[in-house]
């Protein structure tokens, strides 16, 4: 605890910045939602089937995306952390480069790749693997591919960090004692990189909840996420009170998920 209080002073500028540019707007926004003096907008957000359904869709998609990011991101982060410096650099370039490209551009690129007459389907058909083009675009599959691609770096980086922090002498000791690679992974790497997995999963999950462009374009309009509805209320309907209520529900939901994950991760702290 003493280290926390000592470290507090230098953090003040950052805290002020967060307070002014993050906390204040969020509180203002929450204020909008109860401007009418009652909770009617919350009743609408939570009481009408349409919005509950879309919240549920959003949650499901976020879970899927987190799962696939973990499935792909963990091995990748692990590999980059343990390979030779040259390949680590190459790995980083491939992971980070897409981060600097606009999401919109990447989304359109997926449309070119995944379409009925797109590059993938052409290749599969020409190779005789499938007779009819696979439905990869304008459905949930397309949305998941696009979102996983955008969010993968957020999983890879924390995993990479966790693996890098791991004391190699532990691994050496295990090897010296004759543990199999599988056992080393299971008993050493995995438990000691759980922090990275946790951090990556939370970031990916939370970012997924707010996704907007990718589902709209790659989902063919069928995949509806809550951010799309909030945006409609803000820009088209100009019903900022309802938009604020929807955002507040999403925010509350996100914090709840975060708290639950925290608890699950640190059983000793929960006790």
């Amino acid at each position: 605890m003493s280290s926390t209080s000592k470290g507090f002073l230098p953090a003040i500028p950052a805290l002020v910045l967060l307070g002014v540019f993050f906390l204040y707007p969020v509180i203002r926004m929450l204020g909008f939602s109860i401007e009418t003096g009652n909770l009617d907008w919350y009743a609408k957000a939570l009481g009408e089937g349409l919005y509950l359904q879309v919240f549920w869709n959003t949650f499901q998609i976020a879970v899927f995306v987190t799962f696939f990011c973990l499935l792909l991101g963990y091995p990748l982060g692990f590999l980059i952390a343990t390979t030779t410096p040259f390949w680590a650099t190459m790995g980083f370039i491939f992971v980070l480069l897409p981060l600097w490209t606009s999401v919109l551009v990447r989304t359109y690129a997926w449309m070119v790749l995944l379409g009925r007459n797109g590059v993938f389907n052409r290749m599969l058909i020409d190779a005789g693997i499938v007779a009819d083009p696979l439905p990869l675009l304008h459905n949930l599959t397309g949305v998941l591919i696009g979102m996983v691609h955008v969010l993968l770096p957020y999983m890879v980086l924390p995993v990479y960090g966790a693996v890098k922090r791991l004391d190699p002498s532990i691994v050496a000791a295990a090897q010296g004692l004759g543990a199999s690679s599988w056992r080393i992974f299971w008993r050493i790497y995995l438990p000691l990189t759980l922090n990275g997995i946790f951090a990556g999963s939370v970031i990916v999950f939370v970012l997924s909840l707010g996704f907007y462009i990718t589902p709209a374009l790659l989902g063919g309009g069928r995949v509806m996420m809550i951010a799309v509805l909030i945006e409609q209320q803000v820009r088209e309907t100009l019903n900022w009170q309802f938009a604020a209520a929807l955002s507040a529900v999403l925010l509350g939901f996100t914090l709840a998920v975060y708290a639950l994950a925290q608890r699950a991760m640190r059983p000793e702290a929960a006790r």
Partner: protein
Amino acid sequence: MDRKYITRRETMALLGSAAAVGMASGPAFGQAEPPKPASIVVNHSGGSMGTAMRKAFFATYEKKYGIRVVETSPADFGKLRAMVDAKNVEWDITEIGGQDAIRATKLDLIEKIDEKIVDRSKYPEKARSPSVFASSVYTTIIGYRTDVFKGGTHPKSWADWWDVKKFPGARSMRNHPTDNLEFALIADGVPKDKVYPIDFDRAFKKLDQIKPHVTVWWSTGQQPAQLLLDKEVVLATGWNGRFYDIIKKGAPVEIEWNEGALKQGSFVIPKGAKNPYWANKMLHEMSVPQQQAIYASELGYPGLNLESLNFVDAKVKPYLPTLYVEKQFWIDDAWYAENGAKAQELWNAWMLKKA
């Protein structure tokens, strides 16, 4: 409906007989000019529209007045309201959707147009709203692949569009209630001048029939053109200018104008804009027929200055929606200003429904 606001049907009927209108006195100039700012900000939809606006209006404006035109995008009603509320208006002019213009007028978010500066004497009388500048006309119509529907075998009405046996193939429609509700009613037999007020039940019931055949519900204007190009679909509803663009470039795509949904592009000066005088000067630039003709040739969106068609190339004219006004109908912005939120909610619920 308040007659002071944008008006459409009469406007276009008048456009048809351009020669009938046309004599009006020139505007009075000569007041003292406020100091020139280094730049003004014009906010619009972006994309090829920005390119065309630069070519048709901004370039001459910059040359004439030595004021740089800074472009931002997209048109965003929420942002307009936020700017005016916060009394920090970045835009000198902004594009605005038809129904939004009506609501913006009611919410007192926009300035009156200075008639002394902006010469709309050659505009149809009904297109001279006190605070909304009618910039162009566009329409949502059918685009089709000419290699699939050869020799005029394409759908020529919304009833045809719904007839998936006679006109098979994947379709794309906009992910939005506007246009689609109207198309559904017309396909169901409602005369195109009797679609408002919209019968939601009837419209959605008809839409149920087409839903399984629509593979993509598009959300950005460029999508339908791209979907036709990639042959992702063989039929798409879309804005005429987007199809015109790919047709110009040689795509095997054509337009069916019948029963299209006409709309008016609008620009306004936000309340509290920093350079209202120079913003009005820009609107004036956008009302000059020669400039409007350049814009129409670039994008396929004709302006409302009745003389502008005289300056358009004969090759371009068939792609301008103003030629087909009789076959089409006007989207009722006033109806949407009242019922837009409800329509959107019903639309979302309908989209979520498992087909």
